[in-house]
């Protein structure tokens, strides 16, 4: 894995390492050459690892007390909140942790969009990331069902009914998902099982994600290929470890604020009402992190097409490395793309906002325009920009713009001569 062969110093270490090269792996991870100009947006990978581990640990603990039964689920959650030692703390960490996880993953994704981290040779990292994101949404949805409140029940009903849009077999699939004729106990128990499983799938994919990252190495804010190790890189430990740690602590302060002072603000009040198959809440709203996709779903008047649009909105991301035709990675050197990028950010925020509003009148109109623009961005703007955009000069190495007093124009390549390796 490493450029240089690593040999453990101690005899025991060498004996073990010859049989299972764990120490070589550890050495690779600590010495891993990282671009030294990574900014704080790059710390969210570490933060996401922390989120995943937090969710798995607190989830395991909650599963020790939770009862996956339609008659007892709500009650067992209240038992956790009231009687289990620190149960309230663990549940609030888990519930808010899901939101924090998504907050971090959105920043992580948008960082990648800004700096072109999805482009060659990092397409596989990006696609694994999209799969992780899909699994996260599945896990979050399944987990939201478990407390068996009103939003759990009706959210489960609405989302599973999406499958009924599939022609011919749709109804059969929905019945199969439910294990009955409505969302009920069989649905709850299987959702619990899957909710337990998915985080471990994510964990496996995260290993692949990092492995795939370590082949070409990190992208960086100026998006150029760098020699490694070189004066443009620093070893991962201690430089990046301490920087990630610092950012993680800042993140944890925000996290703690939610857990300790507004633990229910991100949830919906209706989920503290026990599930009732006879009464639907006035507004069915998914958790905030799913709102943009919910808006896309509702903006299409046809049931099947709505579902297709929603799925396409996610899957189109997987095609992004080929839709973006620009050879330049970082938006820093792409003045036009930079503007479109911020329009996309605004577009997604608008979609999130209208997703929380009733689908009628002006909200619906805005949702439709924003949905159309979302697809326009990926299908038209990105491919065309690659050919039309005049990019600004890209430096040859990281050290240059930092060390150089005056920009050494002779050493700076123009866009035409920039070669992607």
């Amino acid at each position: 894995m490493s450029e240089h062969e690593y040999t453990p110093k101690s005899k025991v270490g060498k004996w073990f390492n010859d049989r299972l090269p764990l120490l070589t792996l550890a050495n690779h991870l600590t010495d891993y050459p990282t671009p030294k100009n990574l900014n704080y947006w790059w710390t969210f990978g570490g933060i996401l690892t922390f989120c995943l581990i937090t969710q798995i640990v607190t989830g395991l603990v909650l599963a020790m007390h939770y009862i996956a039964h339609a008659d007892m689920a709500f009650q067992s959650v209240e038992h956790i909140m009231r009687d289990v030692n620190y149960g309230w703390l663990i549940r609030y960490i888990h519930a808010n942790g899901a939101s924090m996880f998504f907050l971090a993953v959105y920043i992580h994704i948008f960082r990648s969009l800004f700096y072109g981290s999805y482009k060659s040779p990092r397409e596989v990292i990006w696609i694994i990331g999209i799969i992780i994101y899909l699994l996260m949404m599945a896990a979050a949805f399944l987990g939201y069902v478990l407390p068996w409140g009103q939003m759990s029940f009706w959210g489960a009903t609405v989302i599973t009914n999406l499958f009924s849009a599939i022609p011919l077999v749709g109804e059969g699939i929905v019945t199969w998902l439910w294990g009955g004729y409505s969302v009920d106990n069989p649905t709850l128990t299987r959702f619990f099982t899957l909710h337990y499983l998915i985080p471990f799938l994510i964990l496996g994919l995260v290993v692949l994600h990092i492995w795939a990252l370590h082949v070409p190495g990190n992208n960086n804010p100026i998006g150029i290929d760098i020699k490694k190790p070189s004066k443009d890189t620093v070893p991962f430990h201690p430089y990046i470890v301490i920087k990630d740690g610092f950012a993680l602590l800042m993140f944890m302060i925000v996290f703690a604020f939610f857990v300790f002072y507004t633990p229910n603000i991100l949830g919906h009040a209706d989920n503290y009402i026990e599930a009732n198959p006879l009464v639907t809440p006035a507004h069915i709203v998914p958790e905030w992190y799913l709102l943009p996709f919910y808006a896309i779903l509702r903006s299409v008047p046809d049931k099947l097409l709505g579902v297709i649009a929603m799925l396409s909105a996610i899957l189109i991301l997987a095609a992004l490395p080929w839709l973006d035709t620009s050879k330049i990675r970082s938006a820093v050197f792409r003045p036009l793309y930079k503007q479109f990028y911020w329009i996309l950010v605004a577009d997604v925020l608008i979609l999130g906002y209208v997703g929380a509003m009733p689908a009628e009148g002006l909200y619906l109109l805005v949702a439709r325009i924003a949905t159309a623009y979302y697809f326009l961005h990926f299908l038209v703007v990105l491919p065309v920009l690659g050919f039309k955009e005049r990019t600004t000069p890209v430096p040859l190495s990281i050290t240059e713009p930092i060390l150089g007093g005056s920009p050494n124009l002779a050493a700076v390549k123009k866009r035409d001569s920039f070669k992607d390796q």
Partner: protein
Amino acid sequence: MSEKKTNRRDFLFTATYAVGAVGAGAVIWPMIDQMNPDASVKALASTEVDVSTVNPGKTITVLWRGKPVFIRRRTPEEIAEAKSVKIEDLKHPEKDEDRAKNPEWLVMLGVCTHLGCVPLDQKGDYNGWFCPCHGSHYDTSGRIRKGPAPTNMEIPEYKFVDTNTIKIG
């Protein structure tokens, strides 16, 4: 100059590590403590038993903290037998008076001290209890006399609320 710098750096890093370790410990504790008995379990830690219907020579078994408790109303012969045993002969020396405050009533955790099975009443070589799992014999005071069990059967905390009611725990 350079020495001073090193010291300061060491102190900074040591402090960071130390503070970090304290936090890690503080986070681990709730994850461990959540497995301890919760508030609702602790609230059920005592139970009251009506013993007015128990005749001499009979045992009732009640559930307390998920374990069986034997409440035996002993006959005068059994009491005499229990009291006559020489303390030196016992594997786990305890006087009968210490085990049964009111000699007529023996209240004891019905769990063999060997590996936790429930012994059978009125069985074994000493007219007391006999554990079927690995053959421990207990006398009429619930003391271990023969077999692999290391100690006498445990006496829970209990008291007579009135003449007919025993509160265990």
